[in-house]
């Protein structure tokens, strides 16, 4: 049986202290973990990043969203020191990653979108090998257990499944006890249970005051984990904010949906033409008032409103709208 990833969460979180700077970055005297201004990068003439500004306070979980080719990996790898930039100011943990990468490395934990480890070492050997490179590393077995690979400890990397190899990536990222984690699509290939376990691990790290920058294509992941999401389209930031209020989502109208009763039809704006299944969907700028009138009508006429629901735009709806407006970015 796989060991759940969160089995050691209690060891991780010493107290229920609030998140580092996420709550009040303005009041905090701590400089931000990441600060980026006007970042630009082209690959042989093609601009992949066209002026990104980004500030991530210490202790925040920041999610970068955006279509394939939007420039997320490029941005993250510039912050890690892997790629050079053409223009812009970049500071990561007080260092310029382009010139002070050596000082930065011991403090970073990285999950790459694409990378690998020596296939002929075992899980434990691999994590131990990486642990020895960091001055203040965490316990090897503890980290292996944390990512749910305890039962595969003695297995060679070649023998791991794709998702297990991603978990190993996560273990390597964590074992150096980094202050800042870059997770480039960290849960791609995870099964649903593993994904939730990974989320708990990331949250526990943030509670310890670690800063996390992750990219993902899973809206539920961003919704659950991120203090703030940054939507990148075509190398530019098109929106940013907490997932709950991104794109003024909380104030956008809602849709009300129910099955039209067979005998009777609510009057005027309370109804619409039903679809093939007999459901109607009406748009409401003010869903509270509309719902009140609708349910009032239903009680009065003793009509059931089967399948009644109020649908708020999801993060995914907002995201799709934003990236559609951003236009042609995924080409």
């Amino acid at each position, binding site marked *: 049986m796989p060991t759940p990833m969160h089995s050691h969460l209690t060891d991780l979180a010493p107290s229920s202290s609030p998140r580092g700077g996420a709550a009040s970055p303005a009041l905090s005297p701590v400089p931000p973990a990441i600060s980026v201004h006007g970042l630009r990068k082209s690959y042989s003439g093609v601009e992949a990043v066209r002026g990104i500004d980004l500030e991530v306070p210490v202790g925040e979980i920041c999610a970068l969203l955006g279509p394939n080719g939007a420039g997320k990996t490029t941005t993250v790898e510039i912050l*890690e020191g892997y790629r050079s930039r053409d223009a812009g100011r970049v500071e990561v943990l007080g260092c310029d990653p382009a010139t002070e990468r*050596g000082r930065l490395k011991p403090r*970073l934990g990285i999950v790459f979108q694409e990378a*690998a*480890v*020596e296939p*002929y*070492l075992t899980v434990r*050997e691999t994590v131990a090998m990486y642990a020895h490179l*960091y001055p203040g590393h965490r316990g090897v077995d503890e980290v292996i257990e944390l990512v749910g690979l305890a039962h595969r400890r003695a297995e060679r990397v070649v023998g791991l499944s794709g998702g297990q190899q991603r978990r190993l990536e996560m273990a390597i990222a964590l074992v150096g006890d980094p202050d800042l984690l870059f997770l480039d699509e960290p849960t791609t290939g995870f099964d649903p249970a593993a994904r939730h376990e990974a989320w708990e691990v990331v949250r526990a790290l943030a509670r310890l005051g670690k800063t996390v920058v992750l990219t993902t294509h899973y809206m539920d992941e961003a919704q659950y984990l991120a203090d703030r999401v940054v939507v990148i389209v075509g190398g530019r930031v098109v929106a940013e904010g907490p997932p709950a209020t991104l794109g003024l989502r909380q104030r956008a109208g809602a849709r009300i949906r129910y099955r039209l009763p067979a005998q009777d039809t609510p009057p005027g704006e309370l109804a619409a033409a039903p679809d093939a299944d007999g459901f109607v969907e009406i748009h409401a700028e003010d869903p509270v008032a509309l719902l009140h009138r609708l349910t009032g009508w239903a009680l009065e006429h003793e009509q059931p409103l089967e399948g009644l629901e109020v649908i708020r735009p999801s993060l995914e709806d907002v995201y799709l709208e934003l990236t559609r407006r951003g236009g042609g970015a995924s080409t």
Partner: protein
Amino acid sequence: MSAAVLTLDQIRYVNKAFWRNPMRAFFTFAFPLMFLVIFTALLGNGVVHIGPRAVKESTYYVASMAAFGVITACFSNTAMMTTFNRDDGVLKRLDGAPLPRAIFFASRILHSIFVAFLLVGITAAFGHFAYGAQLATGMTLLRFLVMLLVGSASFCALGYAITAAIPNGDAAPPVVNFTIMPLLFLSGIFIPFGNGTPDWVQWVGRIFPVRHFAVALQAGFLGTPFRWDDVAAVAGWGLAGLVLSVRYFEWEPRR
């Protein structure tokens, strides 16, 4: 960890991975022995004249194949495995961790030296029992071991250097073989030089490190004269390789 401890730690993991890669371990050790058997079977009864001396061809091949084995293990294997690792992202991953580059190269070069010593030991033992070849003793043995040390480290450094000229894993075997195979032939590894060896071939031998290395190893097996120039020539190439690798080595896959 101190640099020395970290280097040993790296060597430990490099070593584990080496022996668990069946292709790598097999080609490193089986290839030179196989060639030794083939060459001696085909040509082993002849006589090679080296200066005033006449040596049995089978003994000559023990020395030659020892050199061939070291070059394959240190140069060809290093270049190919490193390119494959670069393609797969193994090097990129490692580069994300605070592993000092000096320790990365030192540990891997030291491991190659260890493999080279083992390989020459096996070849010498096999050559002794199968063909009555005899390794020198005393000072000659010591000089021989110095050449082996310098040679394996140098060819390994050259292996790292040439990865900068290899675009991807698919290109690794052709590029490596194209560089080393002609040199092996033009340095008398497979076919001993005779009186009729053209001048330009002699010059190729003088310029490139392969012949210098082979001649110095022969001194250990055949009792031919040992010259420190040979060691210096190989070391010069190795140093150049090291400088080039430090300067041009790439950690990320090319695209």
